């Protein structure tokens, strides 16, 4: 049965103070919306040959999603197009009612991870220009993420340097599942350039590197993909630490986006314990893995960890640090976190202020 009478977006019971939303997914209203930012040569290429990623699936996600476009059913813009494709509706449904002072855009499934590196780079540039044109120049609350053709380090680094000092962007965006684990040296030019222009690198769940969502093959269910993101993120983070990325790029800051944070303590304990015994294998590391993680890593909250007893959540956050969490909704995706509902009672005003806004403003350099 279809909805017959579409109501206005529900007036939200939201947090009273301003917040930062560190994971918003802007969408294209039409398949050709990037064309004005792409050379004519690529229009014809896309229509003739398409986009080939490092995976068997040519089109669409490897798993069906729980809602259409993996997005909230109430987020279709009234003027048509998929969820997240209208600035005015995003303002009405997300930015205004939830008092969002800073919204970080993370465009997905754009130019990342294509086997044709020239196409990947052209699409990344187009998506970055599109973020300015359609979003950040029209609403100063929104800030973009520099998308790069991530499998070609030098070209990606050039795209990052091209955006140096551009206040439309607050981070460089990577995904967690690439051709190789993220600490490998093919990706080092990206970290070098990000450190040079002073922006953090966000690592968002998903990716097109051709590897399954689990470390031991393709699982049956979407729910396994949903929980599998934390495995991929652990692989990425362990690789970044153990390859010595933070030793080589000591000012680099990274954000773990949409992959949870409940696993951070156990991964770190295990890394530290083995580091004591296997230090001679990784002599380029001067400090314990936990120290690199504590100093270089920030975490977005959505999908928020939700243990039965709130003390467990507080202990977990105590370990990670209230200064390292960045609130995020994941709008317009279906597993959206409503800002007034994510924290249980018993959090101090100072910690709430850090969690909802101040950590993000500080990390992303927003006054």
């Amino acid at each position, binding site marked *: *049965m279809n909805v017959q009478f579409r*109501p206005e977006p529900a007036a939200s019971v939201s947090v009273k103070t301003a917040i930062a939303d560190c994971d918003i997914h802007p969408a294209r209203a039409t398949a050709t919306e990037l064309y004005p930012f792409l050379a004519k040569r690529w229009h014809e290429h896309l229509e003739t040959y398409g986009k080939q990623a490092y995976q068997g699936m040519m089109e669409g996600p490897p798993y069906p999603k729980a809602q259409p476009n993996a997005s909230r059913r109430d987020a279709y813009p009234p003027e048509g197009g998929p969820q997240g494709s209208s600035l005015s509706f995003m303002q009405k449904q997300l930015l205004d009612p939830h008092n969002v002072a800073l919204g970080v855009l993370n465009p997905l499934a754009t130019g990342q991870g294509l086997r044709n590196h020239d196409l990947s780079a052209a699409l990344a540039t187009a998506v970055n220009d599109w973020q300015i044109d359609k979003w950040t120049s029209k609403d100063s609350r929104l800030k973009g993420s520099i998308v790069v053709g991530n499998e070609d380090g030098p070209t990606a680094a050039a795209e990052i340097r091209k955006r140096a000092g551009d206040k439309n962007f607050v981070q460089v965006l990577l995904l967690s599942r690439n051709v190789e684990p993220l600490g490998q040296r093919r990706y080092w030019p990206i970290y070098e350039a990000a450190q040079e222009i002073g922006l953090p690198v966000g690592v968002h769940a998903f990716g097109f590197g051709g590897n399954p969502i689990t470390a031991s093959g393709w699982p049956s269910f979407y729910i396994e993909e949903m929980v599998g993101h934390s495995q991929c993120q652990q692989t990425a983070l362990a690789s970044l630490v153990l390859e010595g990325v933070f030793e080589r790029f000591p000012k680099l800051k990274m954000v773990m986006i949409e992959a949870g944070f409940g696993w951070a303590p156990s991964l770190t304990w295990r890394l530290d314990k083995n580091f004591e015994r296997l230090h001679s294998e990784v002599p380029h590391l001067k400090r314990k893995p936990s120290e690199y993680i504590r100093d270089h890593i920030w975490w977005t909250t959505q999908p928020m960890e939700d243990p039965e007893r709130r003390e467990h959540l507080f202990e977990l956050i105590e370990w990670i640090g209230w200064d390292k969490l960045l609130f995020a909704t994941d709008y317009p995706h279906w597993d959206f976190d409503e800002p*007034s509902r994510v924290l249980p009672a018993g959090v101090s005003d100072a910690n709430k202020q850090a969690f909802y806004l101040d950590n993000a403003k500080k990390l992303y350099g927003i006054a």
Partner: protein
Amino acid sequence: MTRHVIAPVDELPPGTRKFLTIDERPIAIFNIKGEFFGLLNRCPHQGAALCEGPLIGLAQSSDPGEIEYTKLGEIIRCPWHGWEFDIRTGQSYCDPKRFRARAYPVNVEPGSSVVKGPYVAETLKVAVESDYVVVDL
């Protein structure tokens, strides 16, 4: 408890739903195969507009490999996180101990009784010759 007149029956044919606000509460009234149901249009989980979700059936399994699909069209699935509620009772199938959607009784009353009875017709004129959908809040 106040009885509110929602609409003439003809305006809410089977397969439709109507959204309205009564006493500042967002309400949705459904006509499912001629039966009427009322729900608070706010998901008890995180506050989404629950009644914008699709109506589905209930998939349950008594033993591995045995799947029963019942209550066809009587389970409302939240447009955000997909939580499922029984439209007849508001019962949650995700976390029945902690969460329940607020269900309101809906009836069809003849216009003659609506004119006389303890009803509030929020926005419509009532004619005695029709039947009306009425919700108790």
